[in-house]
């Protein structure tokens, strides 16, 4: 249902009311934004030289933030690749005909979806070294993200495989293919193409979750900004604090917005694709988008 069904086309009086409401609401929003800017300005936070440090290569800030972005993307890339591969395997296991495969795999998926991601990462960071597995904060973060996301992706893949039209599978069996052939040649290619936008959307969630590195001491964007602030505070006091925090946050938001946009483009393209015609909307459920160990217990 589009929102247009919810209300009639406005008549002249309703239009006037809406225009007044629009102007008033706009004024309130502008007022709030203006108030915030005014407070920032009167604290001297909008001064040009304070923001210039973000682009001043002599200060080392752009390099540090650039490196932090690369490090953040690195951990996200490692985790995403590993989670996709493991998630695919788990999804196949979950759909297996053998009970002794299906039940343990289901238990693994449910377990990793039920535990908060931060607890999972802390487990990798704090427990694994005590049983003789040396691990860096990068490793712990990547492993935690992998374990959680593989469980989420397994469920997404399973839904994707099940959503392929039944006739496809039946036709494949009818021409004499075996179980593995049906899965690899018929079901997976169609499911993957259909799941591509969701996969990119999940990458956004994963990238968001990589900011948990802030808490476990991995030098991602936020932790780097904090570090820069602390080292600058020794010489300049609080001069650049706000600017660095805003920069770190903005980088996260811009990268994620770009990825979200890519997901939408992919989705629109796959909808135009005739081979995928008549597929319903595929979208990540809201709780999965929340990250941090979303998904039902």
């Amino acid at each position, binding site marked *: 249902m589009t929102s247009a069904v919810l209300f009639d086309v406005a008549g002249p009086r309703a239009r006037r009311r809406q225009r007044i409401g629009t102007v008033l*609401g706009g004024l309130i929003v502008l007022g709030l934004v203006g108030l915030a800017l005014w407070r920032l300005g009167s604290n001297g936070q909008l001064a040009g030289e304070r923001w210039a440090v973000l682009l001043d290569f002599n200060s080392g800030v752009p390099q540090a933030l650039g490196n932090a972005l690369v490090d953040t993307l690195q951990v996200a890339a490692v985790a995403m690749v590993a989670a996709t591969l493991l998630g695919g395997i788990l999804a196949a296991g979950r759909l297996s005909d053998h009970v002794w495969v299906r039940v343990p795999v289901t238990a693994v998926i449910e377990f990793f979806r039920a535990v*908060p991601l931060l*607890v999972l990462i802390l487990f990798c960071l704090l427990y694994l070294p005590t049983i003789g597995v040396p691990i860096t904060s990068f490793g712990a973060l990547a492993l935690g993200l992998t374990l959680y996301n593989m469980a989420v992706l397994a469920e997404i893949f399973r839904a994707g495989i099940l959503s392929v039209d039944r006739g496809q599978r039946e036709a494949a069996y009818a021409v004499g293919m075996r179980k593995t052939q049906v899965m690899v040649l018929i079901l997976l290619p169609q499911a993957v193409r259909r799941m591509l936008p969701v996969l990119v959307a999940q990458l956004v969630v994963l990238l968001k979750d*990589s900011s948990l590195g802030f808490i476990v001491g991995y030098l991602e964007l936020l932790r780097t900004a904090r570090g820069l602030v602390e080292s600058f505070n020794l010489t300049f006091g609080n001069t650049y*604090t*706000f600017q660095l*925090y805003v920069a770190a946050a903005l980088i996260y938001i811009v990268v*994620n917005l770009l990825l979200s946009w890519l997901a939408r483009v992919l989705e629109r393209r796959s909808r135009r694709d005739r081979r995928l015609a008549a597929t319903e909307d595929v*979208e990540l459920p809201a709780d999965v988008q*929340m990250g941090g160990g979303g998904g039902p217990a």
Partner: protein
Amino acid sequence: MSIFSDNWDLLRDAFLTTLSLAVVSGLVALVIGTVLAGMRVSPIAPLRWLATFYVEVFRNTPLTVVFFFFAFGIVFIDLQFPSRYITAVAALGLYTAAFVCEALRSGINAVPPGQAEAARAIGLTFGQTLRTVVFPQAFRTVVPPLGNVWIALAKNTSIAAGFAVTELTAALQRLTNVESTRLLMVFLAIVVAYLVITLPSALVIRLIERRVAILR
């Protein structure tokens, strides 16, 4: 199970903090999210834009960053939350509101258009259409997704540990120092504590879902 009895006070307080964080910020998120969902389908374009802007920003910002800004950033516009607990509630509530809005909107989209058309046909205004026809049905179809958002929120409270709120994950970090010989038990205790919140929630959600389901 001596890990429970040895650290009973810490664990109990941490558990109650986690639970109250989740409940209070859940209520905040429900109220703001419902208003946002109403705005997103409203006939007034700027309201739609505002709600869309809010949802897009929060959907693409890590929760850690939201926490970070509420803890360290807003002092620069001369704002300050009275306590760390309230900072955490604000961050969790405002962040989750965006996802409540998304869940509700998908529910609104699932109400058959005929319902809204009929409501309009008998002369209900936009507000009445939403209040008496669309929302009551939408809330029923979104019981499972809203419930899942609640469960995700309960797990997301763990991030407050990084911002000096003594909830379960902070208790975990403290216990790993004290009880370094029984680490596995410590982790198990904390995971069980989270499951005590999430598993019954999942059950209740399934019950409510069956109770209020509309047969179409």
